[in-house]
């Protein structure tokens, strides 16, 4: 009897099919058909085991955290899962928003240095944010609330703040003003204020991907406004989620590259968002604590890819403020994230390990891809 090797079949058959009695697939003719079935398209093995519940797609869009959320998920439970995901996001917004006077973060900011008891989520974001502030030496800093408030008011009024105003707002801006006691309570010293705008959406992406895993959803993509993307699993055809990176303009939607994500997070920081023009100069929303002004380091955009959404969002701000050279030095020192940079002279640099899942498409628009060791 001709021997058909077992190996080509083994890894391609999904676990759910394997318990079938061996006699079932032992005849060569069976194996040939099976091999044709499974090798024609590898993802069929996955499709077959989900066959009892064909992969349904569900989507949801809503406004939260001051921006638009777009979630999509596959699987029999996808629709119910997304309803829960929306509720989770709204709840996190309720806890973390500095725009709502009743949020836990606002209570902490208004406590005038008193100890405040916080929910598990708020305490977790604050702790993570403090860690990333320390790791990035304050280039990302959650305790930058007074400076953010000053620039927001300036943007509203269409004026540039005076150097005196800036110096005053800068004084308490340090993550070192945040203290946590043994009972897990927090307090802020020196009149400092925390702003979780640079980490909240990434943290939410972490929570949502963890929920997707627990709910048994086969794949889900969470787009949290203009900053963070969380990608869980892979699409039913076996391909990874594809995220477009936008060029540095407000008007057009042209992308200069794509990044493939599987169980990972991507956050981007760009200087074209929330900016205002005064006296021929453009003032954007990514503030540099060392000067008190919007960061001006020759970068237009930074996208950070990491295993944590909170980390990717905090780091995208930090790398933008560091500038390209310092950011690459930081990358070599840490090695636990990947990044794609877009400079003001239309050059694109990707860190080495992301190059396999990053595709550069900006050539026609006059962008240049530089080698990592440029």
């Amino acid at each position: 009897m001709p021997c058909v090797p077992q190996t080509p079949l083994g890894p391609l058959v999904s676990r759910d099919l394997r318990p079938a009695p061996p006699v079932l697939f032992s005849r060569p003719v069976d194996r040939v058909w099976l091999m044709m079935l499974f090798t024609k398209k590898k993802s069929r093995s996955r499709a077959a085991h989900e066959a009892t519940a064909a992969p349904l797609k569900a989507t949801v869009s809503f406004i939260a955290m001051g921006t638009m959320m777009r979630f999509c998920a596959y699987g029999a439970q996808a629709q119910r899962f997304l309803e829960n995901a929306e509720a989770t996001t709204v709840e996190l917004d309720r806890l973390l928003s500095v725009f709502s006077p009743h949020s836990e973060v606002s209570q902490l900011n208004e406590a005038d240095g008193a100890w405040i008891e916080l929910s598990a989520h708020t305490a977790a974001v604050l702790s993570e944010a403090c860690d990333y502030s320390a790791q990035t030496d304050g280039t990302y800093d959650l305790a930058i609330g007074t400076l953010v408030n000053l620039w927001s008011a300036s943007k509203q009024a269409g004026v540039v703040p005076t150097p005196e105003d800036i110096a005053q707002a800068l004084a308490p801006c340090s993550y070192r003003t945040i203290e946590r006691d043994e009972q897990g309570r927090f307090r802020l010293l020196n009149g400092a204020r925390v702003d979780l705008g640079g980490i909240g959406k990434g943290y939410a992406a972490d929570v949502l991907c963890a929920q997707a895993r627990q709910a048994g959803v086969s794949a889900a993509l969470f787009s949290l406004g203009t900053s963070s993307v969380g990608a869980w699993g892979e699409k039913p055809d076996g391909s990874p989620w594809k995220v477009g990176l936008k060029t540095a303009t407000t008007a057009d939607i042209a992308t200069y590259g794509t990044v493939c994500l599987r169980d990972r997070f991507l956050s981007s920081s760009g200087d074209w968002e929330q900016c205002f023009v005064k006296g021929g100069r453009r003032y954007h929303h990514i503030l540099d604590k060392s000067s008190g002004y919007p960061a001006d380091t020759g970068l237009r955009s930074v996208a950070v890819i990491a295993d944590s959404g909170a980390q990717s969002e905090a780091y995208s701000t930090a790398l933008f403020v560091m500038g390209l050279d310092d950011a690459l030095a930081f990358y070599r020192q840490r090695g636990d994230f990947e990044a794609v940079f877009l400079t003001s002279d239309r050059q694109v640099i990707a860190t080495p390990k992301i190059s396999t899942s990053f595709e550069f498409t900006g050539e026609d628009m006059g962008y240049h891809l530089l080698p990592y060791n440029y």
Partner: protein
Amino acid sequence: MMHDVTVKTRSKNVGTQETPTGAGTGRTSGAGTGLYQLTTRRKAGLHQGPSRRNISLKSQAISIILSVVFMVVMLVGCKDTTREVTLRDGTFSGFSSEDDTAAYGEVTVTIQDNKITDCRFVTWQADGSIKDIDYGKVNGVVANQDYYDKAQLAVEAMKQYAQQLVQAQDLEGVDVIAGATIAYNQFNEAVDAALAEAKK
């Protein structure tokens, strides 16, 4: 009034369900179902069967049946890949959810011979007006040039989104664009809804 009609048909996009990437993939999972059921039945038959000889005959017969089923499935599959997703001829509308100012996007696509031949995108504001040449004016006049210019840039961008869809025939071939504006997300959502109508 036209606006009233659109409000009635508009719905939040929670739970829009469709097969993942159209007919082709749907058919693939169908093949999976067939295989699963056949193997299960065969398993049951084996346990009832009185002798090994009988089992062998049965399994031979079932192998042939399986083969025929697979051939049919694969032929159908091949046909599908060349045809891809079919869009009905006609004009289809889709709506986005509301943004923080209660404005929402409406996309109207025209389909002919499975192609998007025209696309229009407007944003309805809470007061029932659309974002056009007057968007960014305060009480009908340009109060702040910078503000007005920015608003008009957004209107221009909305036209570009629609043109780009007709040129590229799909949304950039990506699942999401990092750093995209709320307006683009609304466009995206409304296009999905309109094309879902065209696929029905």
